[in-house]
């Protein structure tokens, strides 16, 4: 085959068609293959795994879900308890932090927030007195004093804020078993509030009866009875 034209070459190539597999092997292979039914698990089409897929797959894992639920209810319960925590209780500092956080979130600050805290502490004291919780009484009174001190030191007082403080002081005066009116800080607070309210009353037009009450208030102030004076001021403002 040294001299080979194209036709001869193609003819020779076509003779290679004689190459065939062994017949018995081909039959055996066919039966073996057809006997093999698909046993592979068909996987679902894969997709991009996003962050949320990972989070959701973790979330729906039973153990993790139970743990999450326990933590969630624990936190929820703790926050519930915090609301009822009174001065002297273990959770009271947490309640105070929660109040500060709430104030920060709502943008409350300065005197307005001090008045809120003052009224909250007075409400705590009133609740402690009402429940007869003797162990909490002293810490509650201390908390009110501390709140009053921060209010007393605040120089920016206007008639409206003074009215709010007066309202708190009225609540405080109604709390049984406490004699906070004699406390120097509370007394100073009374004085500041009363003097501020008096200045405001002098600027307003009063009836004859109100004018008489104003005179009584001024007399009480001269005697240093600011708590009584405040009561009368609130009477005029009603």
């Amino acid at each position: 085959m040294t001299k080979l034209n194209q036709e001869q070459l193609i003819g020779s190539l076509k003779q290679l068609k004689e190459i065939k597999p062994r017949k018995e092997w081909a039959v055996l292979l066919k039966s073996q293959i057809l006997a093999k039914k698909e046993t592979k698990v068909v996987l679902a089409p894969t997709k991009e795994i996003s962050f949320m897929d990972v989070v959701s797959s973790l979330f729906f894992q039973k153990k993790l879900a139970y743990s999450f639920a326990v933590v969630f209810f624990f936190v929820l319960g703790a926050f519930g308890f915090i609301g009822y925590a009174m001065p002297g209780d273990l959770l009271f500092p947490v309640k105070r932090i929660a109040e500060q956080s709430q104030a920060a979130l709502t943008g409350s600050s300065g005197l307005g927030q001090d008045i809120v805290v003052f009224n909250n502490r007075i409400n705590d004291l009133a609740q402690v007195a009402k429940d007869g919780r003797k162990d909490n009484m002293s810490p509650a009174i201390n908390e009110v004093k501390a709140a009053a001190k921060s209010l007393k030191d605040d120089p920016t007082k206007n008639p409206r804020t003074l009215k709010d403080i007066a309202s708190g002081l009225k609540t405080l005066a109604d709390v049984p078993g406490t004699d906070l009116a004699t406390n120097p800080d509370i007394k100073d607070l009374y004085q500041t509030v009363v003097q501020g309210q008096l200045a405001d009353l002098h600027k307003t037009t009063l009836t004859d009866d109100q004018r008489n009450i104003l005179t009584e208030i001024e007399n009480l102030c001269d005697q240093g009875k600011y708590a009584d004076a405040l009561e009368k001021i609130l009477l005029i403002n009603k």
Partner: protein
Amino acid sequence: MDNLSEQFSQIYDQYIDKIYRFVYLKVDSQETAEDITSKVFLRGWEAFQSPNSEVKNPGAFLYQIARNAVVDHYRGKGRTKLVSVDASPEIVDPGTTAQDKAILSADINIVRKAIQKLENKDHQDIIIWHYLEDMPVASIAELLNKPEGTVRVMLHRGLKDLRNIIQES
């Protein structure tokens, strides 16, 4: 036999000789050719059963598996040939006399060895498909994802190389 098995049975009967021949001419070992052909049809059967796959052209599909299987065979074993072409069994046409058989067998073996010596494997494939399996150029072009003109040029060059190899031998 269910419908799927029946369909694949027909495909098997249609392509078993072609695929075996295609593989055999590339590996030149009956044992290896049988092994690779088994894998080709097994993979084809698995794909045929899979609900996610749709085999439109079974012939092209099986040839593609066969090409990859041969490549994997050489790559995996780190070799180019398993058995020397001279050691392979002779091909005999049962319809000729003993003398004719000897002459014919000798000629066929020369061509077979020459095909195996083709360096360009695409040329090898195209010659086998076109002259042995009577596959039209258009089908080869589709199978190789090449333009028909390119396939024609490759076929021409492949034949030329083949002739040179035979004449040199």
